[in-house]
């Protein structure tokens, strides 16, 4: 039945066929979204790098940044990554208690991070750095605030997942991808923070 080669590889498929499950689709989808989000953050970081020297009448990064607050926030986010990892392991074991035990602290740590950022921003505004005063202010608040919004959305997502699990009172194997998805997002937000911490804060302090 097989005729001389058409298209180089005529013939039935070799190997076995596997139709992707919705969970696999979701995971690839999340990865693509995160890759796209990377490009978004890259644009904002390029904007910040291009404009951060424009402090004009407003305060500059050197006098403004208090690295102690920021490094604390970094550790908070780092811890939340670890607890998220533990929560994910629990979810993959279908361990209902484990999920609650690890994901509630994750959300709380995330919230703490957002709280610290709100505190930090308020502090800066009081010192005269606003969105309007200079483009350092505008690009700083935009970039860091955009990351803060990502963290906030992550907290909302984790919370919604906790509510979902809490109502079911159990974790199914079928739900594992939901935890994987949120964990990927959470780690990604953490990765972006590493970049922001280095590029904005540490380098800003160095000048």
């Amino acid at each position, binding site marked *: *039945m*097989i*005729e001389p080669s*058409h*298209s*180089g*590889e*005529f*013939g*039935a*498929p*070799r*190997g076995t*066929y*596997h*139709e*992707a*499950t*919705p*969970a*696999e*689709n979701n*995971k*690839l*989808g999340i990865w*693509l*979204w995160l*890759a*796209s*989000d*990377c*490009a*978004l953050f*890259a*644009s*904002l970081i*390029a*904007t910040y790098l*291009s*404009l951060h020297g*424009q*402090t*004009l009448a407003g305060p500059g990064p050197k006098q403004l940044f208090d690295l102690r607050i920021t490094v604390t926030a970094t550790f908070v986010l780092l811890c939340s990554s670890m607890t998220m990892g533990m929560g994910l392991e629990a979810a993959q074991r279908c361990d209902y208690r484990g999920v609650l035990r690890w994901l509630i602290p994750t959300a709380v740590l995330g919230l703490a991070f957002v709280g610290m950022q709100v505190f930090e921003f308020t502090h800066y505004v009081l010192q005269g750095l606003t*969105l*309007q005063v*200079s*483009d*350092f202010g*505008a*690009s700083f608040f*935009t970039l860091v605030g955009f990351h803060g919004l990502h963290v906030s959305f992550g907290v*909302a997502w984790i919370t*919604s997942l906790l509510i*979902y699990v809490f109502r079911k009172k159990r974790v199914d*194997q*079928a739900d*594992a*991808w*939901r935890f994987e998805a949120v964990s990927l997002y959470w780690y990604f937000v953490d990765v972006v923070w590493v970049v922001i911490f280095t590029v904005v804060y540490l380098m800003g302090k160095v000048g």
Partner: protein
Amino acid sequence: MAAVTERLVGTAPRTRSESGVWSWITTVDHKRIGILYLVTSLCFFFIGGLEAFLMRLQLATPDAHVVSEVVFNELFTMHGLTMIFLAIMPMSIGFINYMVPLQIGARDVAFPRLNALSYWLFLAGGLVLNSGWLLGGAANAGWYNYAPINIGQHVINGVSTNLNPGPDSMGITFYAIGLQLAGIGTLMSGVNFIVTIVNMRAPGMTPMRLPLFVWTTLITSVLIIFAFPAFTADLFLLTLDRLFGTGFFNVAQGGDVLLWQQLFWIFGHPEVYILIMPAFGIISEVIPTYSRKTIFGYSSMVFAIVAIAFLAFMVWSHHMFTVGMGPLVNSVFAATSMVIAVPTGVKIFNWIATMIGGRIRMTTSMLFAVGFLVCFVIGGMSGVMLAVPPADYQFNDSYFLVAHIHYVLIGGALFALFAGIYYWFPKISGRMLDEHLGKWSFWLIFIGFNVTFFPMHFLGVEGMPRRVASYPANLDLRLWNAVATFGVFILTAGLIVFLANLRKSLRSGQAAGADPWDGRGLEWSIPSPAPEYNFAAVPLVRGRDPLWVEKTYGDGHMIPYVPGGAAPEAEAGGHGHAAAEGHGEGGPGGEGHGAGHGHGIHMPNPTPLPFYLAIALTVAAYGTIFKVPEIMVLGLLGTFFFVFRLIYDHDPGHHVLPEEDAG
């Protein structure tokens, strides 16, 4: 085929009983969403065409005042935006939606609900953008909307200054928010198509057997997900500038007006390829079918697509040769821009080589494909001329550039889309378009297009800048402007004939049957229009041009794939499958591979949630535009509510029994 007997027999076919507006609002069927895209984009196309018509009336004679400067500036801005974002791109997405799952042998896209959401956000974005006409002026600073004119009223060194004086410049806020909405939708489409193509191909549909339209879709989607974020960021900064008084694009606040241009063209140049890539794909389907030959140089076609996509990210500054980046940067970008001509040339020659040695049927679709080749080559050549910076200093922002962009976007993308319409309309509607009327429409459109746009090359080098509302009589621009406007009338006549053809076909068109063109791809192996479940049994793909392979070597029907026990000739193969690995974690919704499981085909249920989500986000958009925080917050809360509803809403789906005869 033994497997054919496994088809379900004797069950009452459950056809698409749903109809009416609500069924369209709640649909998650990729084919219906595709039709929504196609119809909507056609409507926007005629709106954009009307805008162009008014502009050409104004420019037919010197010093004319058919419309005022204010309106003219809105017209050319909205014309560009409408044609690019609301007509050509969604028309491509419409075909992608309808055809890609069929061409890869899938039952739907990976995320049917996200797909519906993409459409509703595109529509919402289009409506928000156009609502500017009624709510305080449409956008008026060109489709690329350069800074700092786009920031409008601004405080500059303590003085409140309107950088866009004259009209109420509210329109650019509609631009910023409307395109943001549509952009989110497009981004989700991009993700959706990539996952669909990577994960959901039928057995045997290896990467190097993918139809080229699917390849171009994949690469277009990659361009979308990596190019749109730059625009998202840009629009975000613009929104902040316009509504919150930041100064990203205001020099007085330390801003940089070129920041907008850089980010815009990082997006904007890939966007041009987002527009033209699916067109390449359609041409690569149409020419082999009507030449009765497989595509010439498949591998080099794939390589060319990938190369063009990669280079598309490396050339953006050629739109900015005259902003003063210096000779070195200009030379680098000139070089990369010229290099794009190489893979593009490979494609052109491969298409012609496909025709050579074939048996060519000059259907309307094929006519449009040939028209595409002629016009796109002209557009590509003026593109090379524009890539020479010293020449570009004369060409840039002149009518030469207007001619170029229309040769690639009308002569290129739109002609290809018309070829696609005449090619796939029978599959989508089940009825043939009239070939006689079709040929009339082609010749009128082709001649009208060239009469309109070819003279613009002359106008450009004779000193007519683009975006002028009028030109004085003493410049020697009278003749070619008159000719161009005359051409528009021919073009319009062609479009009217096309509409008449659509109407005639939908009323009394000849029934198409499954395979009216002696097709080569999987989409022609199923009935027209495609049933809800697409394939009664998942087809087994045995080569490139799978249906043609079966016509030549088999009995002309696709062999159903049988899970576990494969068709006899499949056993010989080893384990060398090029497709990617997946994790078999199971989970609900894993569908049967065929109808053989006895309970029909599992399909997702319709849902209004994407529609509601789009409405909530639109409410937030208007709250932002009109600076009403309460409404904005309300809309955002609604958005999040529906986002989480969508995430946690379990869709049990329903089962459809395939119809008796799927052949």
